[in-house]
């Protein structure tokens, strides 16, 4: 009954599997994005407090969720790579980082564009904004270390360790930033979704969830494609890659 998951931890078996399933994720992501975008602009009602400006929430919140979840997943793969020494795990971590960094940047960007009309400022040193910025730094550090090491095996293990160190630090950083923020109460603006959270109608919530799911599927599709490239690069000397390339021709 038990499925042998380790079978798929071998790059040679995972490569074709990823190739088969990634178009499905991409297609589902595209459909959900279209539905989600339609809902966010035409179905979701205008917010009584924030007017049309609140519509940024439908990409801001999914992007912020993704930025955090991807880091956790990345650290999870890194840990798996450390424990079972599976090559695929570290490749997954490497493939996740750029997308995670992208969503972190997007969360900051859309947050700034939302903050300007709502609070009258592009940036406040709010606990959440600051943590998100630090998260972006962590992603950049991970990718910089990854690309600075020439030996792929060492690069994978070193960046994996860094991801784990980062994930231990994230709660400490988060709470320290929050605490720091309450100390400097005067300059900060407290916000809890800017009144949207409390008055969020069902339709808004559904739109938000659909957009979040679309981002998930998009991430899976992109990461699977990227991990295939990484597999090819790292395994380019192996027999199965050569055979596959010869068949292709």
């Amino acid at each position, binding site marked *: 009954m038990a499925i042998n998951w380790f079978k798929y931890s071998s790059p040679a078996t995972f490569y074709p599997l990823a190739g088969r399933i990634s178009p499905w994720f991409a297609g589902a992501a595209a459909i959900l994005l279209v539905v989600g975008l339609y809902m966010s*602009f035409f179905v979701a009602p*205008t917010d009584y407090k924030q*007017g*049309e*400006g609140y*519509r*940024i929430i439908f*990409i*801001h919140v999914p*992007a912020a969720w993704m930025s955090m979840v991807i880091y956790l997943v990345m650290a999870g793969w890194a840990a798996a790579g450390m424990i079972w020494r599976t090559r695929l795990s570290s490749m997954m971590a490497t493939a996740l980082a*750029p*997308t995670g960094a*992208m969503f972190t*940047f*997007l969360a900051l*960007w*859309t947050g700034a*564009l*939302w903050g*300007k*009309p709502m609070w009258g400022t592009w940036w406040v040193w709010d606990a959440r904004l600051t943590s998100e910025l630090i998260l972006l730094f962590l992603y950049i550090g991970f990718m910089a270390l990854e690309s600075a090491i020439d030996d792929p095996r060492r690069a994978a293990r070193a960046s994996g360790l860094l991801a784990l160190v980062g994930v231990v630090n994230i709660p400490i950083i988060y709470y320290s930033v929050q605490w720091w923020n309450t100390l400097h109460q005067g300059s900060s603006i407290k916000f809890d979704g800017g009144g949207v959270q409390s008055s969020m109608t069902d339709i808004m919530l559904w739109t938000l969830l659909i957009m979040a799911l679309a981002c998930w599927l*998009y991430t899976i599709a*992109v990461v699977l*494609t*990227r991990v*295939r*490239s990484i597999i*090819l*690069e790292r395994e*380019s000397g192996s027999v199965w*890659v*050569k055979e596959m*390339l*010869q068949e*292709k*021709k």
Partner: protein
Amino acid sequence: MAEFFAMGTHGAYIWGSYGVTALFMVGETILVLRHKRTLLQRLGRMVRLNAEEQR
């Protein structure tokens, strides 16, 4: 139509957010796919070269 794009007074902010997000997501997709294609071409060329040498 113009009213829709104006989004009340927040048009610039909304389209700025959605536009940049779309740009990034489309851009990432294109980059990833192009990287895969060039990689396959390069590796394929190498395999062919090796095969010719062995002949």
